[in-house]
């Protein structure tokens, strides 16, 4: 019985709804594209594009999920990313790309630390603090850039940036091998006939199958943009840490009931500040990628992206009240958002209608797993 429940839990709308929402959306778009005589929607190129377009939001979303899990909130990510981009572009010609990258990441982490310290040591509400840093850091970008776009002229630096952001990593063999490995683990689990984990096993097998099929469909020449690879690695590491390690459990405990966590010996403050630092670091990394994409940045870069990042996390089912959330689902949430815009572009939907459709789809996607689940997360 407990097994059947576990199964229903893991594949029910409440748990897996966001995957279904993405699949549904893609199916609708693929059909619409076919009906309009457009090139096939499920091409490697198009899917890679979506993943590439979602990668910056995805990377920031992973860290945002951790912040949300600890029960806090970070509105400053987009500004921090812009600042990191400015630091990278500004310093690269002076101290070289690698050092400038370190500086950009350190800047991001530093602001995350400031956010975390103010929120947790002074005890001001995270919303207002990060709204303050959103404004202040964007102001700092204005001051540093004097309100103008910056660009790198030095060709060697430019080449390094392109290498950092624009190379493609061969993905055929890794994908195939990973898929086969997952399959093997799944089969192994099946042979060991453990009572628990049937759901996990099935999930693993589905994932494995998807990977193998994707690899075979894409062919041996298949390569991923490196930002997508970064996103995959970051997501995988975060997901493993959160779900498989004690550190992960402590993040959840901190957000689920800070007092309980404190009483059971968890250094709640450290975990909360740590989440902000991770968020700043991720924003710094995203900003560095953004700057490297173009070898340039403008002072209004990424403005407003914080809401997209938070939307991705919440679409992925992360609670605003802490204690629950999954980074993988956040990434899927980001994919939903970018699939939507990609679909608009492909179908050439009238610009006026895009907002209306997007807003509706976001609510419907959230409804899929809320209504499917027993009870929704309160307000």
């Amino acid at each position, binding site marked *: 019985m*407990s097994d059947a429940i*576990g199964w229903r839990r893991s594949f029910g709308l409440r748990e897996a709804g966001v995957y279904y929402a993405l699949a549904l959306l893609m199916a609708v778009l693929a059909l619409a594209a076919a009906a309009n005589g457009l090139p096939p929607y499920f091409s490697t190129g198009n899917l890679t594009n979506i993943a590439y377009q979602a990668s910056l939001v995805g990377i920031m979303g992973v860290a945002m999920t951790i912040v949300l899990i600890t029960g806090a909130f970070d509105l400053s990510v987009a500004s921090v990313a812009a600042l990191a981009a400015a630091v990278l572009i500004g310093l690269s010609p002076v101290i070289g790309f690698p050092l400038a990258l370190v500086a950009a990441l350190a800047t991001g982490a530093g602001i995350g630390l400031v956010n975390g310290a103010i929120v947790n040591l002074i005890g001001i509400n995270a919303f207002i603090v990060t709204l303050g840093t959103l404004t202040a850091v964007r102001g700092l970008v204005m001051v540093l850039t004097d309100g103008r776009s910056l660009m790198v002229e030095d060709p060697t630096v430019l080449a390094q940036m392109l290498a950092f952001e624009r190379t493609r990593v061969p993905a055929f063999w890794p994908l195939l091998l990973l898929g086969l490995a997952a399959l093997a683990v799944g089969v192994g689990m099946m042979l060991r006939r453990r009572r*628990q984990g049937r759901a996990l096993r099935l999930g693993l097998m589905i994932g494995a199958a998807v990977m193998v099929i994707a690899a075979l469909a894409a062919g041996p020449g298949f390569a991923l943009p490196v930002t997508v690879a970064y996103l995959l690695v970051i997501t995988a590491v975060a997901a493993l840490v959160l*779900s*498989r*390690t*004690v550190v*992960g*459990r402590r993040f*959840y*405990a901190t*957000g*689920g*009931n800070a*007092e*309980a*966590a*404190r*009483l*059971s*010996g*968890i*250094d709640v403050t450290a975990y909360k500040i740590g989440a902000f630092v991770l968020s700043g670091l991720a924003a710094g990394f995203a900003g560095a990628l953004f700057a490297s994409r173009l070898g340039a940045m403008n002072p209004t870069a990424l403005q407003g992206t914080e809401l997209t990042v938070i939307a991705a996390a919440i679409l992925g089912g992360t*609670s605003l009240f*802490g*204690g*629950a959330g999954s980074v993988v689902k956040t990434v899927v949430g980001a994919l939903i958002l970018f699939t939507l815009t990609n679909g608009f572009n492909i179908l050439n939907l009238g610009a006026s209608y895009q907002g209306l459709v997007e807003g509706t789809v976001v609510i419907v996607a959230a409804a899929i797993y809320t209504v499917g689940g027993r009870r929704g997360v309160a307000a």
Partner: protein
Amino acid sequence: MPLLSARGVAMRYPNGTVALRGVDLDVPAGRVTALVGANGAGKSTLIRILSGAARPTGGSLEWLGQATAFRRPVDARRAGIATIHQHIPLVPTLSVAENILIDRGGIARTQAGDREAVAALLARLDARIDPDARVGDLGIGDRQAVAIAAALAVDAKLVIMDEPTASLAGHERAAVYRVIRQLADEGRAVLFISHFLDEIVRLSDWVAVLRDGGIVLDAETDALTEADIAGAMAGRQFVALARRERAGMGEPRLTVEGLATPALAEPVNLSVARGEIVGLAGLLGSGRSELLHAIFAADRHATGLVGVDGEPVGRSVEERIAAGIALVAEDRVGQGLVPAFDIRRNVALPVGGGWLVDDEAERAAAARAIETLAIKAQGPETAVAELSGGNAQKVTIARWLRPHTRVLLLDEPTAGIDIGARSEILRLIRGLADEGMAIVVASSDFAELLVLADRVLVLRDKRIIASRDAAGLDEDTLILLAGGSAPQGSAS
């Protein structure tokens, strides 16, 4: 040499409340030490200090003869103190197993043998709880069991328990007693708080009584009787409430016909007369709360007829309240109190009355409630978040003490209430019945039910399996009916 000793520990809260004024207490190994005292005497405060959750404003602690200061809870845990706090701090979004193993270190979140360890701990407590269930989905009794298991999971030298059995029924309670004895026999120290004096007398080797922030009695249990302890707690001679036969119920006040809800196994028919007190007995999860919630329409899926004084009542909480039905819910933190409100506003919460807030009337009502229920608070404007557990419970009862109430549904009304106040509350309930109120009270304390009720309904597996006249019923019969085993040496 005692394991832990407190020397002159004093505590003054930032709002000016002096909770402890110089407490000396020794907790030696291999002994069960009971800490008792009236609501608000400072027990939980002392526990918070001993476990590093709060820092005293005076005095010192010694651990194994060495002066120590636990600055954070983790220091006390490292030293070997495991604590179950009164308001059961668990993480609602994590599973039972993870809550139990919450402070286990290492790297991997789940390790081989975790499930077995958790299952063994739960079995030791006789608790039938799915280790994979989310704690947020559990009832308060199950949560209490999880908290106890979590404390046992730590290999502690000293286990501190702040009212571990307040929300448990006979069967689970017995398991906890067994565990406590075992711990002491293994040479560990147990510091144990309870308002059940029979429990204290049976279980503990030593009793310390706290009154108004100071120790007033510190003696071996064998030398004491329940009356001695109660007397020390109250500072006066204490008379236990005795059963009183009452004749002549009035006409039916509350009538329930075909009350059905998915939470109950079968429809319920029930009639409670004016002035009658009906007790609900049962084990944890037997469906007592569900029944009360269905009568109150707090369960939205409940169908069936509910009438008051022969008038049918509509199917919403508002209509039930308007008809004079009132429910004191079991989980005072989750379902009872608005933490941001003071006592006055919490008492004035129920619907009814005019449009404008009448401060004076509210203040007077709250002051009256503080008086009647002996709530230990500075005044009507005290924030409920600053109250001790038992006093907070009294506030949830006080809310319904208004002339309008005709049917009172009480779910564990005396959980966490000290013996003195408990008999006050029981007396109060009886008085309300005498004035014509119909009362249904669910309690895990069967002795209390027998003293109070005219009739007892026994629930098991979400259905009413027996209805007995309380007169002539004894606790053992009730326990057998409820489906549990009798607690060891079930007394009184």
